[in-house]
């Protein structure tokens, strides 16, 4: 009922949760830490249900930070086992997931996932790859700085690869050679003289087309000094925020609308730094994650809708 009501307004496309407070909850209720995490998982299930009923496209959750490996070993182990079991169960319910178009993505450092969990992760991703209606993006061994580093690295990699001319499989020298050999077969020398300036012009062409783009930039050195080797690279000046963004884990998702952190801590703690830098509404809630429920989430949504409306009014006024 309430959700049907909320649906009448704008709905965020991408929501991120930092699930903080499981251990404090466990401590307050005098239960085991791992038990707290289990309750946290239940809260996550609740939240996911609400989100997808509302029509949120992507939910990103911070499940495990790279820094979390510093925690007591049995806790890390408990968390890993939990991840394994949950993913295993999920895989068993593949058909249900398909029916709702639910997809799982895992963002993070793959190398750091323990070997016994990795196959389950891979299978879950593989099975739900085609589902795009409701995506759960799990950040698992993740820190935002590591993500940004790898994105920068990938960008550099992309630009450090010599980019081939548009038709890579065909080699110009081979073609000219072939022509030459054909010509030499057909007749004797005369036409070769004609062919060679031709082929020189061709190779000039290649150089020109690439270096002319560099020549357009006032900063870049004048033409003669650019060695022909670097002409094969993409111009680094063409790197933009978009380029880096395309190497982020979240590249395929819509921009982040709401960021929620529970347990009253007012930090981002290395989560979604790149993504939430603009137009993201950040909420810090006082409740601990296992307590997080509809009652906490609806005010957030309402406030977001309200602000969205205000912004739209402002935009409308500005346009007039």
């Amino acid at each position, binding site marked *: 009922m309430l959700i*049907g009501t909320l649906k009448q307004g704008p709905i965020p496309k991408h929501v991120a949760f930092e699930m903080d407070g499981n251990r404090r909850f466990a401590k307050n209720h005098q239960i085991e830490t791992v038990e707290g995490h289990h309750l946290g998982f*239940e809260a996550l299930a609740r939240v996911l249900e609400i989100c997808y009923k509302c029509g949120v496209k992507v939910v990103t959750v911070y499940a495990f930070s790279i820094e979390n490996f510093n925690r007591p070993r049995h806790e890390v182990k408990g968390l890993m086992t939990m991840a394994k079991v949950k993913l295993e169960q999920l895989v068993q319910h593949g058909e249900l997931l398909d029916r*709702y178009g639910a997809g799982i993505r895992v963002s993070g450092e793959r190398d750091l996932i323990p070997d016994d969990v990795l196959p389950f992760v891979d299978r879950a991703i593989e099975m739900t790859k085609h589902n795009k209606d409701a995506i759960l993006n799990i950040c698992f061994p993740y820190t935002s700085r590591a993500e940004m580093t790898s994105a920068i690295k990938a960008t*550099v990699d992309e630009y450090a690869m010599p980019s081939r001319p548009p038709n890579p499989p065909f080699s110009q020298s081979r073609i000219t050679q072939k022509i030459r050999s054909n010509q030499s077969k057909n007749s004797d020398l005369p036409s070769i003289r004609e062919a060679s300036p031709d082929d020189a012009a061709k190779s000039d062409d290649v150089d020109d087309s690439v270096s002319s783009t560099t020549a357009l930039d006032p900063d870049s050195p004048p033409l003669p000094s650019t060695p022909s080797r670097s002409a094969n690279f993409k111009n680094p000046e063409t790197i933009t925020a978009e380029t880096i963004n395309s190497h982020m884990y979240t590249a395929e998702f819509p921009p982040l609308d709401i960021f929620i952190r529970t347990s009253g801590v*007012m930090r*981002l*703690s290395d989560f979604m730094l790149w993504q939430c830098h603009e137009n993201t509404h950040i909420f810090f809630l006082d409740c601990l994650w296992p307590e997080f429920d509809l009652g906490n989430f609806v005010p957030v949504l309402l406030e977001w809708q309200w602000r969205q409306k205000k912004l739209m009014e402002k935009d409308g006024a500005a346009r007039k």
Partner: protein
Amino acid sequence: MSFSARDTKAYRDDEQSGHRKLGVQQREELVKNYLPAAPNRARSNSRNRKDTGHFGLRKFLKSQLYVFLYFFVHAVFSIYLRIRVAYRVVANQILSILKYHHNTPDYIRRDVSTLSRLPRHVSVILTLEEGGRGVDVLEKLINEVTEVAAWCASAGIPRLSIYEKTGILKKYMPQTHRALSRKLKTWFARHQGPVLSLSTRGETAIQTPSRDHFAQDQQTLEVILISEDDGREAMVDLTRVLAEMAQKGRISASDITLDVIDNELAEAVMPEPNLLISFEPYVDLQGYPPWQIRLTEIYCSPDNQGVGYQVFLRALRKYAQATFKLGK
């Protein structure tokens, strides 16, 4: 909506027994009641009004009810928000009258003396007011900058970075510097004032020459101006440089590590701030540098509008209470 007690219990029992109790089938039975309607039905709610008949009419009424409820809820919520805003404004006003700093560093020093720790680096987000163009707006902004700088100097915070989206202050560095020194001079007596330096990425810092060279323990205040260009754009620039170096074969992509980037951004733009204060009614980073904000404590006084000493002080208090555990 929420799970029934019986099902929750069944789930937890299964959890405890190491997931041996329930088979795949049983588990599917368990969740079945909570799953939304299958997508083909779910998608055709309110929009699909074409099919007439009893069912269509009911759907239509239902969606009308939802629309009505939506506006109703929003109306109520809007009233609630307005009351909240009004209440907080009044409370703020009263507090600021009671605890006015009277432009004297001593009052501020007394205010912060009870705090268990102070941030080494404070960052504030200031906004250039829209609409009113020209000198007035800029003057107001510079005035806010000087105010905040004076508070920081009094509280003994050595580094202050000021984020302003458009970067207009960067064009008026000398003017800003002059205004800052004037302000500090009026707040502090001539010789007690901190040594001021104003810097921004890619420009040489403007330093106030230290007047008495013998004063070793003299406080310093480093003000850094940052703008949208220092956020994602700076990282893009860095990537460009790295890409160029990689192309020339001087580095390989595997040499690029977190430390390298961190070091470079900290040197070129600024190190990580400890505390970020936003004077806006809600947290919106407006393009604030993403790399640096990792562990920054973010303080934003809800529904607050405008720069005020109360917000500053509360942010410092909040910072003193916060605990840092870095993933542990």
